[in-house]
């Protein structure tokens, strides 16, 4: 079989699967509801990120081909190869390395709202000259672990595993780089020192 043929077959398969899978996700909600707290109400929507197979969080549409992904998912791809996972069109490496601004997200903000308890706090990680807020899903996961007194947890972000150490208050990427960053918990939303969310520059109170 010709490779191109396989690829194009897969392409059309993927399209069919995409349509189907959004239905599946709905029907399997009952079975696995424990793992899907944050996402299931939204997966009823037909839009699904082809990388995490969930409703896109901080969705971004690629300029050239108009394919839509979570910002964090496409960033993960972009850190490895700067091509669209669906059509292999070239994509700007800036997505991963320079970050984007809020305005570049689809529908302005597109943030997935995770229901916050009144006792919940905001979580940040250290960036160059300031702090990044964790994306809403990861933030609430860390807060949950924090409140139940765990010392450590693992989170999976743009294709890398990170260990969050709640005793040392730092995150560490679990690969050869072992890059460590400080993390921070704040009862209220940080204002002036916050760069944005997870590599997406805030446009509200930044000078950028």
């Amino acid at each position, binding site marked *: *079989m010709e*490779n191109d043929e396989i690829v194009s077959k*897969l392409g059309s398969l*993927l399209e069919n*699967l995409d349509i189907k899978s959004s239905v599946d996700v709905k029907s399997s909600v009952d079975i696995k509801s424990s*793992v899907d707290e944050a*996402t299931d109400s939204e997966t009823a929507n037909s839009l699904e990120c082809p990388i995490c197979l969930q409703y896109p969080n901080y969705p971004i549409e690629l300029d050239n081909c108009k394919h839509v992904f979570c910002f964090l998912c496409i960033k993960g*791809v972009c850190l490895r190869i700067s091509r669209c996972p669906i059509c292999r069109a070239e994509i700007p490496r800036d997505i991963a390395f320079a970050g984007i601004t809020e305005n570049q997200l689809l529908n302005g903000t597109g943030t997935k709202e995770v229901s916050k308890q009144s006792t919940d706090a905001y979580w940040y990680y250290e960036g160059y000259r300031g702090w990044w807020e964790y994306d809403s899903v990861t933030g609430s996961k860390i807060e949950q672990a924090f409140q139940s007194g765990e010392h450590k947890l693992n989170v999976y972000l743009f294709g890398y*595993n990170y260990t969050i150490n709640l005793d040392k208050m730092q995150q560490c990427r679990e690969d050869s780089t072992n890059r460590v960053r400080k993390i921070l918990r704040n009862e209220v939303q940080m204002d002036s020192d916050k760069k944005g969310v997870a590599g997406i520059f805030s446009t509200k109170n930044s000078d950028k």
Partner: protein
Amino acid sequence: MAGGLPKRILRETEKLLSEPVPGIDARPDENNARYFHVIVNGPKDTPFESGKFKMELFLPEDYPMTPPKLRFITKIYHPNIDQLGRICLDTLKDKWTPALTIRTVLLTVQGLLSAPNPDDPLANDVAAAWKANETKAIATARQWTRIYAQV
């Protein structure tokens, strides 16, 4: 460990179990959610017909950024599969994209059984034999299926 398994893997697994690929049985190991036991039925009208081919599939740490690792356990006479069961499929190597899934990979493997490609071989001797005398190669493949691929 908290949050060890990415949700995508859970989703894919759920779906593979609730809506299996026709002709393929894939289920995760009881002790390792990243390791799948796979049985592929040889497609109809191929020398692999009525064979049941055991495979193993493993999802590495950074899946889906890197492709699943996949191997035939059952011996198979096929120009694109070597003696160790390794498969020559570019979607499992440089053509991998994270938009592909376990399901699409398994479908591709099924496709490879239906359409052996001796021009892009991994098992060089098999490919050479296949090109030199296709009828004979197909007979051998059929024989191997009868001998080895019966679960």
